[in-house]
């Protein structure tokens, strides 16, 4: 079991026989093989299968079988039928992202720079929501936003909400749910970046007559960029593909592209259409991701 690489210069390793050095060269591949094979077979191949399914003849069905007809027309068809849900997905996810940045940046900054000995405790509080089930948490928002709940009652009393106004089953509830569910994914990488920020840099900026806003814009923000980019991606990718919040907290009027894909595969059993929609979602998200990565570098995000 030679998991160690050859020792560095200064510690000449015992002259390895030729057969052994061959094994050494093979070793990384042996270590990688099971995991890489699993990912290739159950992640790579299915994507190809999905791409193929998106080009099946749309008139086929699960029982009669599908014919591969390179039906490229599936793509314009689904875009035409479901562009509102597409736009809504990215609109809601974008809105939730803005909200999450407004909430998450001060939180990450406070934990990284101001919390002192409470740092670890506050970090636990950030990940604590993930200790319980995603669905159970989202259902809890149903209780909080309920028409009979304290929150709606309060908002009605102070006339922020019309007497018959509601929070549940509105776009507001869906965006709130998205923000809530994915906020920790934004905060954690941001915290990691901000934790490395040397407070003396801020002092230096202030000594050089920078206002707090200038110091933030010219020092804190650029230095937290890697965490900001990683966090933004980790937030935006699951949020734009989510359909649980729209289903549980919204109505069909708030349905996102995920809801359409879910029903295409599991209710309508229209595989070509579902596959084409999945692929479009993936393409749209990858375009965003690689746009970002070009600026940040892969290793930084990993």
């Amino acid at each position, binding site marked *: 079991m030679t998991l160690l*690489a050859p020792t*560095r210069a200064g*510690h000449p390793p015992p002259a390895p026989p030729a057969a052994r050095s061959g094994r050494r060269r093979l070793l990384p591949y042996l270590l*990688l093989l099971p995991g890489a094979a699993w990912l290739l077979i159950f992640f790579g191949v299915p994507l190809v299968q999905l791409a193929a399914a998106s080009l099946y003849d749309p008139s086929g069905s699960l029982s009669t079988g599908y014919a591969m007809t390179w039906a490229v027309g599936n793509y314009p068809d689904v875009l035409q039928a479901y562009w509102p849900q597409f736009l809504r997905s990215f609109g809601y996810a974008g809105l939730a992202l803005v909200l999450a940045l407004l909430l998450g940046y001060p939180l990450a900054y406070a934990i990284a720079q101001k919390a002192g000995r409470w740092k670890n405790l506050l970090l636990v509080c950030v990940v604590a929501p993930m200790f319980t089930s995603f669905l159970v*948490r989202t259902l809890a928002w149903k209780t909080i936003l309920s028409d009979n709940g304290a929150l709606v009652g309060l908002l009605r009393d102070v006339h922020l909400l019309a007497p018959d106004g509601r929070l549940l089953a509105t776009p507001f509830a869906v965006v709130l749910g998205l923000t809530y569910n994915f906020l920790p994914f934004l905060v954690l990488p941001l915290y990691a970046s901000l934790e490395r920020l040397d407070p003396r840099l801020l002092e230096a900026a202030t000594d050089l007559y920078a206002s707090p806003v200038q110091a933030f814009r010219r020092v804190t923000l650029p230095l937290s960029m890697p965490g900001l980019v990683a966090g933004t991606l980790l937030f935006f990718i699951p949020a734009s593909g989510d359909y649980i919040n729209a289903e549980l907290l919204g109505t069909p009027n708030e349905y996102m592209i995920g809801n359409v894909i879910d029903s295409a595969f599991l209710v309508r059993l229209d595989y070509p259409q579902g596959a084409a929609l999945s692929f479009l979602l993936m393409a749209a998200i990858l375009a965003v991701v690689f746009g970002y990565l070009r600026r940040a570098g892969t290793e930084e995000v990993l």
Partner: protein
Amino acid sequence: MRLSRWLADRWVMIVALLVLGYLALPILVVAALSFNRPSSRLSYDFNEFTLDNWRQPCATSDMCDAVVRSVQIGFLATVVATVLGTLMAFALVRHRFRGRSGINVLIFLPMATPELVMGTSLLALFVSAGVPQGFWTIVIAHVMFCVSFVVVTVKARLAGMDRRLEEAAMDLYANEWQTFRRITLPLVLPGIVAAALLAFSLSFDDFIITNFNAGTTVTFPMYVWGAAQRGIPPQVNVIGTAMFAVALLLVGLSSLRGRRARRANLLVGPAHPARRSS
């Protein structure tokens, strides 16, 4: 100037605490609802205090079956994903080889792909290959999306490790296996344990990918999803609260252990890693 700076500091902290309150609110609601006797099956409002849900968490027996199944799937997926991911992390950190960037992309992509796309594409594969969906297709899917997270977690721990400790062991006539067993493994173990816990929680809580690949098998999140349409039994909140408590306990214990180790270091100097492993 100093006053406004002080105010600015507090302002950030106050906002942070409010945001933490926003994050904590649903958990408090789940805990409260676990003591609730709902007025009707479809009601989500707090009605009346009761201990019944905690006394009989398995009153709806299919829910407990689903929890047990989720634990089984989570356990299997965690073991496989942790082994595969740890091996890959060792290869990536400890070896130079051709094709590294390709492997990095292969590991990164599942984390950058929406779950929905992974779920539907696996479904497309299983259907076209004629594989019946159920318990084992869920395990396969869970291993697939957990592996990348294991690699990243173990890799971080390995990369931050002091290689000189291993070199010292070799200088002291430990062979490679001894060095691995007594030095490397104990030092990486916290990373592997963290990765395994992460994998288990990802698997246990996964809904989207599972939903597409479960056939008629019901895991806990799938049970909750189904129940959300028919009316949720309050025992779901008991499970949610219990899960939260167990996770919190684990975190508390590990931080306590870390603190004790640090205190011991202060008193007697850093423990020798080899001694700690024996």
